[in-house]
């Protein structure tokens, strides 16, 4: 298996023109997506790193795609800012480009939205080695085809991302979390559904099966006490208040709860689907973002169950012939793929 490293735009172009089939890899934190298949050359982008522009007062930064999220978050944190979609697998070395390609968000996506809500622009090398830019570097922009949004979840199908621009927000001054247990899944679900429709500005709202809710709040320390109290009243439960909650949520977003599982999957979920999903042999799991996002640890039987029921999912880690299920809709996807990657150098399609 040939392996090539690219640390600049030119080297990416060179690699794309040289190898008929390429599998881009950043930090390798999602091996099911970055391990080359037969006939593919590995394109190691871990050297394509660094923050190119960051203007804290604009809430915008631009960085090379291979930049580890950890590095980006440290820089943002020094200015009291963060990536509000709270990307997972930071500890494992996830990069900005890999996170976009896989389309992953973490628990705090509940408050302001997911990755797709924060990506502003992209520069990528298409399947013919051409450099293409989409979007921009300002928080509001409606000019031209939004290639940046096309990259989200694309698994690299349309090109190798080189640069990405993102919107960021101020990090909450303080955070608190409330953990509340219920007797049954149905009760926890009912409480979750109630909270989702209320204007509570929750940073995170997770269901930990079978019947625990974990809720995170952010804001002024003076207001947080009152807001926690209000949550307790609403839920008619004291629960457990975590004053120092940072380490806990870092564990969650790094998917520490999947550690022992051979296969890691992302499943787009919804509260009304949870009872059905709970009936499957899924292993360790957690429903994030008000029940809209499931990360689960599986063995092959669990993966088989998802396939058999045609439940959309993405395998991040572990053996899977096709990590993405179902494939993208042919009538719209195929022409775009043909336009940007006519020789089929990149994954998918």
């Amino acid at each position, binding site marked *: 298996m040939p392996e090539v490293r690219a640390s600049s735009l030119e080297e990416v172009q060179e690699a794309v023109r040289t190898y008929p089939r390429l599998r881009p890899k950043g930090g390798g934190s999602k091996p099911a997506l970055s391990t080359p298949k037969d006939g593919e050359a590995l394109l190691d982008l871990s050297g394509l790193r660094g923050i190119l522009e960051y203007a804290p007062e604009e809430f915008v930064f631009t960085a090379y795609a291979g930049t580890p999220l950890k590095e980006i978050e440290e820089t943002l944190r020094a200015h*009291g800012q963060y990536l509000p979609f709270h990307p997972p697998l930071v500890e494992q070395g996830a990069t900005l480009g890999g996170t976009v390609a896989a389309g992953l968000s973490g628990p705090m996506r509940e408050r302001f939205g997911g990755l797709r809500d924060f990506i502003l622009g992209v520069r990528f090398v298409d399947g013919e080695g051409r450099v293409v830019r989409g979007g921009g570097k300002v928080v509001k922009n409606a000019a031209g*085809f939004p290639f940046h*949004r096309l990259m989200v979840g694309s698994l690299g199908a349309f090109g190798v991302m080189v640069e990405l621009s993102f919107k960021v927000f101020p990090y909450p001054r303080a955070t608190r979390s409330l953990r509340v247990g219920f007797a049954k899944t149905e009760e926890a679900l009912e409480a979750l559904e109630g909270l989702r429709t209320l204007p509570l500005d929750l940073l995170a709202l997770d269901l930990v099966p079978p019947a625990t809710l974990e809720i995170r709040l952010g804001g*002024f320390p003076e207001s947080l006490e009152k807001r926690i109290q209000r949550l307790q009243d609403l839920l008619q439960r004291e629960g457990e208040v975590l004053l120092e909650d940072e380490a806990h949520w870092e564990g969650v977003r790094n998917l520490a709860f999947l550690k022992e599982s051979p296969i890691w999957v992302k499943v787009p979920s919804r509260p009304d689907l949870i009872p059905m999903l709970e009936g499957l042999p899924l292993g360790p799991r957690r429903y994030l973002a008000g029940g809209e996002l499931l990360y689960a640890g599986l063995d092959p039987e669990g993966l088989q169950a998802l396939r058999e029921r045609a439940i959309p999912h993405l395998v991040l880690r572990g053996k899977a012939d096709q990590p993405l299920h179902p494939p993208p809709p042919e009538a*719209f996807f195929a022409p775009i793929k043909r336009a*940007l990657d006519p020789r089929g150098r990149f994954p998918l399609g």
Partner: protein
Amino acid sequence: MGFLEELKALFPPGRVLTREAELAPYESDALTAYRKRPLAVVLPERKAEVVEAVRLCHRHGVPFVARGSGTSLSGGSLPVEGGLVIALNRMNRILRLDPKARIAVVEPGVVNLEVSRAAAPYGLYYAPDPSSQPISTIGGNVAFNSGGAHCLKYGMTAGHVLALEVVTPEGEVVRLGGESLEGVGPDLAGFFVGTEGLLGVALEITLRLLPKPEAYHTLLAAYGSLEAAGNAVSQVIQSGLLPGAMEIMDRLAIEAAEAAVKAGYPQAEALLIVELEGPKEEVEEEAKLLAQVIQESGATEVRIAQSEAERQAIWKGRKAAFSAVGRLSPDYIVQDGVVPRSRLGEALKEIGRLSQEYGLRVANVFHAGDGNLHPLVLYDGKKPGELERAEELAGEILKLCVRLGGSLTGEHGIGVEKKGYMPEMFATEDLLAMERVKEALDPKGLANRGKVLPGYGQGPHPGEVYA
């Protein structure tokens, strides 16, 4: 059978318009400086009718333009001469509103504000709020990735569209996205939003709804200069606050708004509106910090809305500003370029200079929180050469925005109006990539021909849109 005969066979009488007088209202959108006579207008009431119309166009090679209420300020729904207009206003049903799932499934002709009205009894709303929201349709909002005053915090339309059913220009019906906030695979729904009808027509749209904020704190501050108001915005951001909206109006815009709706605004060179929103306990704390920041920013007068009525009064002037400017001038062009927030001062200064140079007044109303300028270039279309001068001035402003690191459009789209400026913002290879995608999905170049892409798909008469 010819195209028109087949079209008439597809639709009941009265829903295919071909007579001069019937076509006239569809000759332009809100950018009335451009007019084109379509061959016909169809008024579908169901998805299948839209699909059949698109397929018929594909078979006969007839270009088509889908439109809603025609509020595009960039000529995005300008017809193609001799083409078909698919007017979607009759497809205006909210098909499903599921408060538990926080989604609404709507037809493209649903008016934006209707979604929030329908969601209100459940404490939910649809966040994207272009100023045209009482009239513009969701289908058009999707085409242009519409914005509004709340984009910094809540993003644009793209983030709020979860799924789309689309008919491609070749007549294939495809579903993009899903009902969950999260998906797997390429975000094709996200990509479709903002492609201005060049890649197909949305037949059904699934929107995310949000809980309506519990409390608002709306502040109006007056300043002795535009620059001071602009600096105040930076100070608010630097304090770590994230307001739902921050809007600035200059003297000319204030005068116009006063003349039109008597909002009771203070006399000033510039007004800043800042609105905080969220849980009441949080807003209370934020308001204390905001008061301190605004005090230090040198505001000459500060008002805080004490009731919902006072809040609405503050917004009334702002929302009326565009139409109010009509009182100051027979005609005007609205631009909507974007600059990085920190360069707003520089941009406004240069706009002032250009205004002098061209001898045309420019009123400024803008979404200061996200750097989205709305310079209104005032002119009199009856005076020879004045429209051309106004367009040239507007063009200079767009180039300025790009030069400062911004964008040609924040929310109105490229349409026909700004496509000539696309090469200012995008390199040739970027534009060629857009063209390749367009060509792959629409080999005959029928869907909204002549828009967005400057060197492409101009039909049998190159340059016709500038004629």
